[in-house]
């Protein structure tokens, strides 16, 4: 497992995933799917923010929330939960206020996920 300071992805969660799925290859497979789908999801949310489309933000944040919690990106998952709730309430002040943290954490999570995919996952 690569050493990353201040992990945006909880390595303990990846170990749990390894135990649940069987081996590191399965974890890598999930991380690769996450990298692609989360990258698309972040862009969808960003575009929807620009278009002021709260419905699209809510749907994309819901998907990204679930995926992020699944791979141990809990802070990003929580930010997505807040975005989803704000979008449901059509609270654009809350959505705009959440955007900087969302951008920062999503970038960190994607960067770590790509790094882990690139060097291979070793949870042992």
């Amino acid at each position: 497992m690569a050493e990353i300071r201040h992990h945006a992805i909880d390595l303990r969660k990846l170990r749990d995933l390894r135990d649940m799925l069987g081996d590191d290859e399965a974890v890598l497979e999930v991380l690769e799917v996450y990298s692609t789908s989360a990258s698309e999801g972040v862009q969808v949310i960003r575009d929807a923010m620009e278009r002021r489309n709260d419905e699209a933000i809510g749907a994309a944040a819901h998907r990204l929330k679930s995926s992020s919690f699944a791979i141990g990106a809990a802070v990003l998952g929580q930010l997505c939960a807040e975005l989803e709730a704000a979008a449901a309430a059509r609270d654009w002040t809350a959505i705009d206020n959440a955007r900087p943290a969302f951008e920062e954490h999503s970038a960190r999570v994607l960067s770590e996920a790509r790094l882990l995919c690139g060097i291979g996952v070793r949870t042992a």
Partner: protein
Amino acid sequence: MAQILVVEDNAVNMRLASIMLTRSGHEVLGAENAMDGIRLAQAHRPDVILMDIQLPDLDGFEATRRLKQDAATMSIPIIAVTAHAMRGDESRLKAAGCDGYLAKPYRRAELLEAIGAWLQPAAQSRAGAAIT
């Protein structure tokens, strides 16, 4: 080995379910939306359906209602997969025709237990249908 249809629009959740099921010896059919799920269920008649409730086209409640109204698919056990741990969900799921439910996130043991509860009855039902 059983054939499991997973209806799930989230790519990561789909892959997680797929890995857990295939590594437990099951065959997985995947659908990213409710309409594809209904078509696959009608075409393949899987042993069990795992139905996500929040889907992009029809929600899982409506997809389940349609499958339970279709003579070709009404006997297939449907396990609802939901992140909605809200009070009242269980009765809504039952009213729609779901045979069980699984709360996300779930562990492999929970998934296999939920499916296993229906595999033997499904196999017996098919065997009975073949005899008659």
